[in-house]
């Protein structure tokens, strides 16, 4: 998740990002390949005043992809 977050340049001010990352990690632990709807539902409790939601969603997909690639290896 951290690699995906860095790769997609997700944070702006960063204030909320620790919580975003933890929520994303929890989501991915139970749903390894979440849909947009899964992500939106799981992440709904974490607010980001900078408005990084679009990159957050992309980064969750990226993290899912990274994790599945790692398992495949």
């Amino acid at each position: 998740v951290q690699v995906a977050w860095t790769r997609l340049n997700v944070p702006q001010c960063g204030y909320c990002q620790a919580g975003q990352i933890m929520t994303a990690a929890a989501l991915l632990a139970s749903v390894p390949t979440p849909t947009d709807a899964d992500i939106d539902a799981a992440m709904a409790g974490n607010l980001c005043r900078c408005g990084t939601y679009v990159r957050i969603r992309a980064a969750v997909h990226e993290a899912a992809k990274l994790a599945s690639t790692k398992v495949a290896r």
Partner: protein
Amino acid sequence: MNPRMRAIVRAELGLDGDGAGLDRRGFLQVTATAAGGLLLAARFPSIADAAGAAAPGPQLYIAIAPDNRVTLTIPHSEIGQGVRTSLAMLIAEELDADWSQIRVDNAPFDRRFDDQGAGGSSSVWSRFDSLRQVGAAMRTMLIGAAAARWRVPAAQLRADNGFVVHAASRRRASFAELFADAARQPVPDNPPLRPRAQWKIIGKDHIGKDVDDIVHGRARFGLDQRLPGMLFASIERPREFGATPASFDRAAALAVPGVKHVIELAAVAPSVDMAHARITGGMPRTASRWYRCSGAPAPRWYTRLATPTPSSPAQRPCIAPTTASRSSPTPLSSR
């Protein structure tokens, strides 16, 4: 940049009128650092003058460590607008530093920096020329130092990714190696800025300089500040736009575990700063059992929150809780 803005930044740099150069008012100074590197301090005259003669001093620092890492210390506040990355790009572009070797720190809050606030999307445009001038001046001095060392014309040298290179003789020296000599070079008047077509860093995507710290939990925010005896305060406001607090129950608020003080704020007349906040006095936040609002239409939330379910937010204590910290009581610093 339009001519008016150009005039402003030129004035800031002391470049106006009689051909005054960058060095005219001690614009750049170089000193050794305790860590064995060197430090270049840039001073923008208009800021120093605005801050008053009692508080002159540099507003921006560039340190080059012996391992060629470059640390920029900028006075601007980073609030997610990316100023720690964008302003570094301006300097790095002209300095021809290795972007991966650049770190950015924020200067502490100090009067000598004048206004350290962020707003109006002004940081990049107001510094667009002056920070590139700083980078270009430093690059010119580094090249001058290499030219003197190698006894070749400066025109045969170029800066490249943290090094000065003499292609003809295949010599190269890192910025760190040259920095001490560069400090003795004259500060150039109006060092040439790179034409837009040659920009390598500006206008390109970069991973933010803060991102690694943020995603690894190392970033620090105002909320992380801890001082001995520190208390935590929150201003409680009505949720309804235009609502005015009518009353609150001090005793009930003080009964909440950890609450030390409940302070009623005096009504603040709307000013330029407060126009948006519309603070009208009082501090209640929600329609809890501690307060009622007046001035707002009878809202649905009131009836909803006035009969809270066990899990509803209205059950939470919400009158200006000023809770004790873990350490001993000492007044907050006035800063």
